């Protein structure tokens, strides 16, 4: 008795497929199917007035007929069904409101009919769900191999939506049976989600589950080649399998591409996220991934130091260094954003000094490569019984900070130079402000100690970040705040409130002033230290934002989420410019390469993925870790990627080789589909185990010494 409704749906949904260019086939189908629909309307009549559902349907059909100006039919139908004339409009809208639920809020162009009809179809015989699904399954198993992999992508979203519909319509036992029967067919990387689903057996449960709500309201994105899509469509229409067709129309976004169907491994590489793959156009925006021009720094200071060095008998270094610096700063990277695209703070004198220090250190940098691996220093946190949750080093590796589960933030000096506070205001009045060493004089020698503890948070500190000038420290906590601490007074300066839920990560911009934070509320926020409200809110992730990173040019922000996607956001516009899918678990670490071209991400699945930001492509997959990767870092010249994991190892990867291998075949840029080689073992340069110490932070010093940190877990 549902065929009429199905037919209606079919008609109604066709226009929306225009974009895919499938109209030719559809039109024929619609016409040929219409006679059948007429007959079933007749059979429908007898039972029509009995149940409220059927009445609802009738109302909807009436409205549909009326809208299409089929007035005679309206009259006939109404007479036959025994409906009062005036009952039509108000009741129809009412019922539409009641029937819509979470299922069909999407259709805005023809709300009433669509809503009711889809609601109707969802209340079709629940036992048939199994039939529909296994029918499709049978079909996909029999198609040509080249299409099978692509079409198999449909299984998971269909399965989930069918299950949710059953649950939503209170067919509890059918839902369980359905789940039982088909959950084993799903890809193993959906196991986590299936576990959540299996616990969910009641409509009431869905209400509070935001992740599921998102799943229902957002469209699951699939990429299917045109050939495969046609195949699927033809099949569904032949079988009148409108149940499934409906779901595909409403909850799936099928991104059709021309060309060869993808292989299973290609698909597996990209799938796994909560909402399917990224649409291709989502990654088409131009990203200015180049680095900003380094400001010219007057060299006299530098020369002085160089002269000092010359006395020690190293005259050689001077010239090449000057040259390299000069050429670097003069050349403007074509991929770089304009210098003032994002207003950046002006350099202070101390920053310039620091830059000079940086350059001097850089000349002593060890060039790393597959045959020249870095030394590793491990900073072990001992007696951290309260739980070490976050670590950060300053860029010059002089300070190390730890965030702890007991809400404290601790800072240690790694160098012999102790940490000192600024003198009190009264004492500051006494010092000679004209003296050259005034910066030294303001420090209170009595407070010198190796470490300082800062109290203020009221929950575990999950994220921590030093400002580039080493004057501030950011910490984000479970208490929903991000705090800014002064490293001169070791007190809290600001508590940035806005997230209201645990803030999982925060990071300073490489140029200071801005910082980004992300947390349980599924949005990332961009802040400036002197604003108590965020400047930008980046929303789009379907689940918690677990890690946030600034692009080296400060114009972009990358966020990793438990929805298993990575998004790159434009700081200027607040738009999402890249969506990377492929991880099979929540992403817990991100790292930009020093040249800004690449992004590396690590997740609970123990895999590191490499991304080309400019093209929006996956560049490689590094398998080896056996547990969550909590830390990633490129070496200073970008040759080597270090990854630190919960499995108590640090691994070094030859990323240059990974990038080179892939760049040789250029087809990828056009289609967006990469052929990942399984060459993790070749790329793995070394595995370094700790003694029962999970590696939660990595840092390359300016000379390319690798520092790792973690708390000893006896």
């Amino acid at each position, binding site marked *: 008795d549902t065929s009429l409704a199905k037919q209606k749906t079919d008609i109604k949904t066709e226009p929306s497929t225009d974009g895919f260019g499938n109209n030719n086939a559809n039109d024929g189908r619609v016409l040929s199917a219409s006679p059948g629909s007429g007959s079933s309307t007749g059979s429908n009549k007898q039972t029509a007035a009995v149940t409220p559902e059927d009445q609802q349907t009738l109302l909807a059909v009436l409205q549909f007929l009326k809208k299409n100006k089929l007035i005679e039919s309206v009259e006939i139908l109404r007479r036959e069904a025994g409906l009062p004339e005036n009952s039509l409009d108000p009741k129809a809208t009412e019922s539409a409101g009641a029937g819509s639920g979470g299922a069909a809020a999407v259709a805005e162009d023809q709300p009433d009919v669509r809503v009711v009809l889809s609601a109707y179809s969802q209340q079709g015989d629940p036992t048939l769900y199994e039939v529909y699904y296994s029918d499709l399954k049978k079909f996909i198993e029999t198609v040509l191999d080249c299409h099978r992999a692509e079409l198999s992508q449909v299984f998971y979203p269909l399965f989930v939506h069918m299950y949710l519909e059953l649950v939503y319509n209170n067919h509890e036992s059918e839902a369980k049976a359905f789940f039982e029967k088909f959950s084993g067919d799903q890809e193993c990387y959906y196991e986590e989600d299936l576990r959540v689903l299996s616990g969910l*057996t*009641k409509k009431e449960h869905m209400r509070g589950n935001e992740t599921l709500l998102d799943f229902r309201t957002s469209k699951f994105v699939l990429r299917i080649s045109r050939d495969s899509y046609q195949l699927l469509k033809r099949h569904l229409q032949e079988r009148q399998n409108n149940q499934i067709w409906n779901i595909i129309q409403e909850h799936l976004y099928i991104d059709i591409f021309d060309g060869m169907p993808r292989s299973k491994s290609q698909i597996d590489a990209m799938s796994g996220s909560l909402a399917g793959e990224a649409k291709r156009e989502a990654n088409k925006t131009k990203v200015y991934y180049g680095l900003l021009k380094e400001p010219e720094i007057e060299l006299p200071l530098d020369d002085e130091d160089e002269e000092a060095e010359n006395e020690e008998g190293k005259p050689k270094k001077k010239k090449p260094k000057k040259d390299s610096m000069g050429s670097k700063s003069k050349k403007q990277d074509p991929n770089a954003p304009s210098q003032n695209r994002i207003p950046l703070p002006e350099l202070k004198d101390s920053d310039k000094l620091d830059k000079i220090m940086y350059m001097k250190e850089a000349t002593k940098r060890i060039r790393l490569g597959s045959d*020249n691996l870095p*030394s590793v220093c491990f900073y072990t946190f001992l*007696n951290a019984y309260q*739980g070490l*949750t976050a670590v950060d080093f300053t860029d010059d590796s002089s300070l190390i900070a730890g965030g702890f589960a007991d809400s404290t933030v601790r800072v240690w000096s*790694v160098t012999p130079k102790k940490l000192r506070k600024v003198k009190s205001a009264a004492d500051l009045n006494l010092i000679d402000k004209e003296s050259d060493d005034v910066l030294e004089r303001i420090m209170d020698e009595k407070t010198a100690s190796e470490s300082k503890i800062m109290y203020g948070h009221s929950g575990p500190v999950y994220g921590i970040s030093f400002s580039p000038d080493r004057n501030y420290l950011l910490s984000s906590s479970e208490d929903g705040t991000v705090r800014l601490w002064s490293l001169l007074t070791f007190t809290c300066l600001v508590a940035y409130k806005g997230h209201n839920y645990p803030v999982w990560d925060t990071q300073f911009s490489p140029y200071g002033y801005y910082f980004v934070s992300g947390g349980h509320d599924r949005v990332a926020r961009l802040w400036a230290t002197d604003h108590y409200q965020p400047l930008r809110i980046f929303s789009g992730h379907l689940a918690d934002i*677990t890690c946030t990173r600034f692009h080296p040019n400060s114009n972009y922000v990358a966020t990793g989420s438990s929805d298993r996607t990575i998004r790159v956001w434009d700081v200027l516009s607040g738009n999402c410019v890249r969506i990377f899918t492929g991880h099979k678990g*929540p992403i817990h670490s991100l790292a930009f390469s020093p040249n800004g071209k690449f992004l590396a991400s690590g997740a609970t699945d123990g895999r590191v993925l490499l991304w080309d930001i400019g093209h929006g492509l996956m560049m490689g997959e590094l398998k080896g870790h056996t547990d969550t990767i909590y830390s990633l870092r490129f070496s200073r010249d970008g040759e080597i990627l270090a990854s630190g994991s919960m499995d108590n190892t640090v691994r070094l990867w030859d990323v240059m080789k990974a990038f080179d291998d892939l760049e040789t075949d250029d087809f990828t840029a056009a289609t967006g589909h990469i052929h990942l080689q399984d060459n993790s073992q070749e790329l793995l340069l070394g595995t370094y185990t700790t003694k029962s110490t999970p590696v939660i932070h990595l840092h390359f010093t300016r000379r390319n010494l690798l520092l790792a940190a973690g708390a000893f877990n006896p």
Partner: protein
Amino acid sequence: MADREERRFAEVSRESVRLMAEGAGVELGDDVAALLAEDVCYRLREATQSSSQFMRHAKRRKLTVEDFNRALRWSNVEAICGYGAQDALPFRSVKEGELFFVEDRDVNLVELALATNIPKGCAETMVRVNVSYLDGKGNLEPQGTVPTAVQSLSDDLLKYYQQITRAILGEDPHLMKVALLDLQSNSKIAALLPYFVYVISGVKSVSHDLEQLNRLMHMVKSLVQNPYLYLGSYVRSLVSSVMYCILEPLAASINPLNDHWTLRDYAALLLSHIFWTHGDLVSGLYHQIVLSLQKVLSDPVRPLCSHYGAVVGLHALGWKAVERVLFPHLPAYWANLQAVLDDYSVSNAQVKADGHKVYGAILVAVERLLKMKALSLSQSAEGHSGAHPGSVVGAASYRVNSPGLSPPPEPLSEAALGIASHLQVGGAGCHWEEWTPVPLPAMYCELYSFFGDSLAVRFSTGPGFGTHSPCTPSQLSNSRKEPPGPASNLDTTRKMPQLTANLNISPRQDGSPRTDPPPPTTRGAPIYLSGLSREVFPKARFTSPQTTPPAFSFLIGGRQMGQRCQGRRPFQTMFATTPPVSAVPPRTYAHKLPVIGRVGKPVRRWTCSHYSLHLPL
């Protein structure tokens, strides 16, 4: 369906729900209970899932109660209190009633509140760095082997190694000094560390040569003090070499003319130094050391010089080690030692001399134990710690103070009784009440029963401390000088007022010849005292004190040399009368200071409190 669920999740059955409802006074129908049960299961799962997020972000593998509570709190459910302990909760069942519950023992809050042995809490969180992998090549071998990075030594290093070892083990003392100094400050010798450690482990082959042993110990010292060296697991090897020198009956010690005592003292100092500076490199090092010291001490077959080593070793590890090992072991050990000391035969002379050494060492150790204990108690009780900065460990001899403040002692003859009676009387007095209840009095009594007045004198006057020569004149002069001395004296007076006062009582009560109790100004007392003790000792039967030249340059040795002959005295005269006396005081205290017993086996969280050796400090 239910079967499937059960395989995957823990399930709360409808019966449980109904029981819980009954517990809350609500009758539930079957259907309601079923619905509720299902919802409860779902909510539990939901909370568990969201709590795992907190676990992941805390970078842990273990889901804690705290994580779960956070998840509850964020979903606006009241958190569940009382399960935050780190340890696993014992889950019990009652067979008859099919009842399962988490065992929840009563906690005596009163005891807890009045407890004095407040746990120090965990050690401070700190960051320690080590180079794990050099140029990507690391030490993948098991501990103790030579790292691969080190195997190929450069010629320079090899030369350096040869020069240094030759210089240290060679004849020229000046050269040795230079070599040791360099070893102590050279930053580039990390690669040679295993070789040096190997050389040092050669102690066993040169046990006949004191000089060589000394040099090797100096080498250890230099290595330990070198700030650029990361000793890592080599600490263990170094410690075992040092322990060898402390404990073994060295071949060199056969000749009584060889001063192996100094070596043992030095090695003990070194041991404590290694332990305090590098103890954290090897887990359980302290326990191992303490255990092996204890083993030696409790082995009667071992020669006395080994026992001596064990005692000084314990002493060097700090007063807590003494308290936990030496003190409990003392009664057993005492019998042996006494037998040796009481044997006046000529053939026994040498052994007896050794026995005196041991006696002296024990005396020094327990005295410091008493003092440190008193100090720590008085500090915690009176809370005036400000006046006594400095660490408890090394600075003991300087803090345990100047003679001017020491209380006057009882007459020698009545010492034991005097103490006892005074304890009984004085115990009721306010002085003792002011003390936070400690086992100190009991300990003191027991020790007093062994050492008699020598202990009392030392404890109360402590003149030898910090002075260079422990002889009487200097004591006298010192004590004379003290009164107008610095304010620190006053502090020290306050440190031990109770003992002073109590000790004062006893002479009077006992009707001792010196009926004038020492004036409340402690000024006069020490003079009096020292005069007295001088008087007493000459009277003693013991006429030939071991006249070992007081050549010890070290603190331990020096002190004990000076006091040894005096200390022996009371032991000989008084020992017989002791047992009944010592039996009384603890009991007297037991009822007044109810906490004593508990403090005796102090810290509950280490389960086997009897094996107090296992207690980490």
